[in-house]
């Protein structure tokens, strides 16, 4: 009996050791980033002795990054894009999904098939013709191009539809009998009920737009149109040995995503789990 107990304790200890090890592997790059962001370029790679917080923290890294490159402009562009894309995505997908989930109409299956058929199609397969088309429309080097590119995904419609189908039809029927229009039903019954799905979609869209690199790389050419990711990459290639500044810029670029993630993470984990399993 005693040896069994010992074994259980040992097992627990091993589990915790592994967990702490993994947690360290996960977090050390971020801690290192924070630490390097307040160091001078010489201190960044100083190993003997290695210090996490230098004696004279170089806070100026965080102010210099705004003047070395038009960082504020990049931030403004990215914030604008992310907010517009996320709002459009939430609004149009939930709108379309309501129709697919709760209304009957002609060509319903055909229209939905168009969405399903493209959900597995990688964007990289059609990014070139898409660019050619957008250039024809005069969208080259315009922020609007990125909005058009990101805002109307099949994934959003699909995910919201899955969620709406879980809401009982009786709810809508009762509202219809009360004489509510479909628009009212959507706005005052369905939307408030779909908070978890909307939160999940918000994080997915927010993270994808904020972190997107290839899309902006193809479309946004001029300096004042660039997003944070492009601007940061540009800075890294131009000042490749300004390590402290690079890290300060990186830390700043992570903060908004970190905030959104921490606020909505409960929904995110649920959302990934449920959409993941349904595929």
């Amino acid at each position: 009996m005693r040896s069994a107990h010992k074994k259980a304790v040992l097992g627990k200890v091993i589990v915790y050791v592994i967990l702490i090890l993994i947690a360290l592997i996960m977090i050390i790059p971020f801690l290192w980033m924070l630490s390097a962001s307040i160091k001078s370029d010489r201190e960044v790679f100083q190993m003997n002795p290695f210090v996490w917080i230098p004696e004279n923290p170089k806070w100026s890294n965080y102010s210099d990054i705004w003047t070395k490159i038009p960082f504020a402009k990049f931030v403004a562009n990215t914030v604008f894009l992310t907010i517009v894309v996320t709002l459009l995505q939430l609004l149009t997908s939930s709108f379309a999904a309501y129709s697919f989930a709760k209304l009957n109409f002609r060509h319903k299956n055909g229209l939905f098939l168009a969405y399903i058929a493209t959900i597995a199609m990688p964007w990289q397969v059609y990014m070139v013709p898409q660019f050619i088309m957008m250039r024809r429309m005069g969208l080259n080097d315009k922020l609007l191009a990125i909005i058009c590119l990101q805002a109307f995904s099949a994934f959003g419609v699909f995910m919201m539809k899955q969620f709406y189908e879980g809401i009982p039809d009786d709810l809508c029927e009762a509202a219809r009998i009360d004489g509510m229009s479909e628009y009212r039903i959507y706005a005052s019954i369905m939307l408030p009920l779909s908070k978890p799905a909307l939160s999940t979609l918000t994080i997915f869209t927010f993270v994808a737009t904020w972190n997107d690199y290839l899309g902006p790389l193809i479309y946004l050419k001029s300096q004042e149109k660039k997003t944070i990711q492009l601007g940061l990459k540009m800075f890294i290639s131009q000042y490749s040995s300004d390590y402290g500044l690079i890290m300060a810029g990186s830390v700043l670029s992570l903060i908004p995503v970190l905030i959104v993630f921490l606020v909505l993470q409960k929904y995110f984990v649920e959302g990934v789990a449920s959409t993941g399993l349904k595929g």
Partner: protein
Amino acid sequence: MPKMDEAAKAAKIDGLQQELTKLITDVRTETDEKKKRKMIAEIGKYNRQIDKIKSGRILSRETKRDLIAYSFIAPNFIGFCVFTLIPIVFAFALAFMKWDGSNPIQWAGISNFVRLGDDIFFKAALKNTIIYCVGTVPLTMIASLALAIILNQKVKGRGIFRTLAFFPYVASLVAITSVWKMLFHPSKGPVNNILLNVFGAAQENLPQWFSGGLVLFSMILFSVWKYMGYYMVIYLAGLQGISSELYEAASLDGAGTWNKFRYVTWPQLSSTTFFVVVMLTINCFKVYDIAIMLAGGGSGELTTSATVLVYYIYQKAFIDWDLGYSSAVAMVLFAMVLIVTIIQFRGQAKRERT
């Protein structure tokens, strides 16, 4: 609709009604299922017609219903159609054309695909993508499953661990790859420093993580680190779906930890694992940013040791302006994803039947 006088209206309704009753009696006696269904659809049509004449409205109730439904779909569908559906159709056509984006398009037949055969850059891109995939998929799967199993136990600070493991997934690539490049810096980075000072590796033997043969290995390592948190969450959901009775039964049979994993956890998770592997594979095929940021030089160019399919699509289109050929490479990517998707559908159907 022109105004009909009441008598004509009544007569028309009468006529329709008669046909309707005849149809209804026919349906009762009809035995062929297919024909029956067709007739029932026709009954609906008659009913609608009668309705329309009776109410005298321009739009029938059905048309109005359809219009409302379309108004819900339109904002998304128009954007989706213009910016996704049309480019996809265009992409298929372009693969058989020769075009530089400004001069007239020429028909090229299958010559783009023939060219793929002796293009060493394409072959390198394809090979690297597949090696990256073969390395990343099993490692990520094992790491995320192990992590999920550990976090599924009653341990303190579970939520914090889960958040930590997830954070690399949401963090932007530009930021975290720049950290990795510093951590693994060939001459100054702490990783090589530890190899040098703790493990006594010779200075000239220190690995060059981001060039030559090691670059794919570094990319794989990085992807496992970045994406394991995401798949861990999917596995956690799978684990929570396993009934605890199965474990109790296994305990009664005297199964140890390993046997419980082998005979309960692993088989119960098979559909989750299947899904994870499919998603991982497809995402590996689409790799681009990781290669560019870890191995690309200042101008973001990749050599044959690190080039991947999506990079080659990008290069052929936006640097060489060989749009038709670029689309042919894109078709190869599409075919790879399609094959994996078909395997997934087959697997799912098989699982649902059993």
